[in-house]
């Protein structure tokens, strides 16, 4: 019995280790409050361990973990819904400014998360992400970061396959439009010599 419990934890950790980076990246992109990413990840792993008996070996562990993490991140985002609404009301220029200054800052963060994570996302992409709804953002990130198939995204978010395709198309369209605007603005700024 003792061996079973230990080997179960070992098996869980062996499955978790290869996807830790992707989980963390996804979490930091999806969550509104960067300081809460560490808590979200910790809660996700503990929930997954508690429910490990419901995980079937034939299913994708990656998709299963992303599903639990998405629920956790959405719950935290709902908690900060007022802040999220406020961010949606800002102009794209202000959003880009926010993305440049309001990203994850090691000096402001708690000691645990202050270590190694590096906010490498280019400001235009970060600002563009903020113009998406929670579902659009989750679908886009599950595809880009998690590299999940459409069917896995559908199962993770518990939405129909058609909705996955629709949300992904909308998310890409919004991102494309935002990046094009950002590039035009940068081009104009360069031309004017600012």
């Amino acid at each position, binding site marked *: 019995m003792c061996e079973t419990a230990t080997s179960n934890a070992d098996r869980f*950790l062996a499955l978790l280790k290869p996807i830790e980076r992707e989980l963390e990246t996804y979490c930091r992109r999806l969550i509104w409050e960067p300081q809460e990413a560490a808590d979200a990840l*910790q809660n996700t792993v503990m929930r997954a361990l508690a429910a490990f008996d*419901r995980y079937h070996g034939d299913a994708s562990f990656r998709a299963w973990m992303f599903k639990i993490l998405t629920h956790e991140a959405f719950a935290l985002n709902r908690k900060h819904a007022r802040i999220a609404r406020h961010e949606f009301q800002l102009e794209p220029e202000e959003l880009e400014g926010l993305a440049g200054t309001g990203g994850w800052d090691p000096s402001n963060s708690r000691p*645990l998360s202050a270590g*190694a994570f590096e906010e490498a996302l280019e400001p235009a992409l970060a600002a563009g992400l903020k113009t998406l709804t929670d579902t659009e953002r989750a679908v886009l990130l599950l595809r880009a970061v998690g590299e999940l198939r459409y069917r896995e995204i559908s199962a993770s978010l518990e939405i129909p396959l058609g909705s996955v395709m629709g949300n992904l198309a909308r998310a890409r369209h919004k991102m494309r439009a935002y990046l094009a605007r950002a590039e035009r603005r940068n081009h104009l700024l360069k031309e004017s010599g600012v």
Partner: protein
Amino acid sequence: MKCDEVKSMQGAYLDSELDAKTSLEIAVHLRACAECARLFAEEQKLQARMRDGLSQGQRTVALWDQIERSVIAVSAPAARLGRAPAAAESVSGRTVLSALADKIRAGWNRSRWAWCALATAWGVILVLNLTAREAEGPRLVEKQLPQPSEVRLAAKQKWLLMADLAALGEPAPADKVKAARPSPRSDRRNENLNT
């Protein structure tokens, strides 16, 4: 396949989500249509940029070390107590009944003497209770229940009393007709009528 149809499947095609036949049809169309090929190439470049940008990021070593330590800490007490977490039981294919039997066995092994003492105490209480009932039981029965002869006597007395009452019997109050006394108002009304 027409351009509109091909464009509507652009995302799924670039994500390799289409079946082989449709993918081949789109590939053939792209070879023939320069405009669609240009749009697809642009979209592919944009998606690559988004994918590369969004998936950048490092694993925070301190954070994951702490999470992994928590996982081990949560699993270790269960192992020490001789019970695995629910996850382990299911994964190893154990049934609920066998898991329950294991838990009972583990509990018995842990506190065998305590269970023995508890069982002895219950036994003593049961014996004392039984002996107390035997001493007091008959007396209570004698005191509360009347003898059959007493019951018969009481029934006889009651029957005689009923017979006496029937012999003396007066007519029931309902048989007597009482004349109603005229009210002063009806007298006045009669007087008015006469006049």
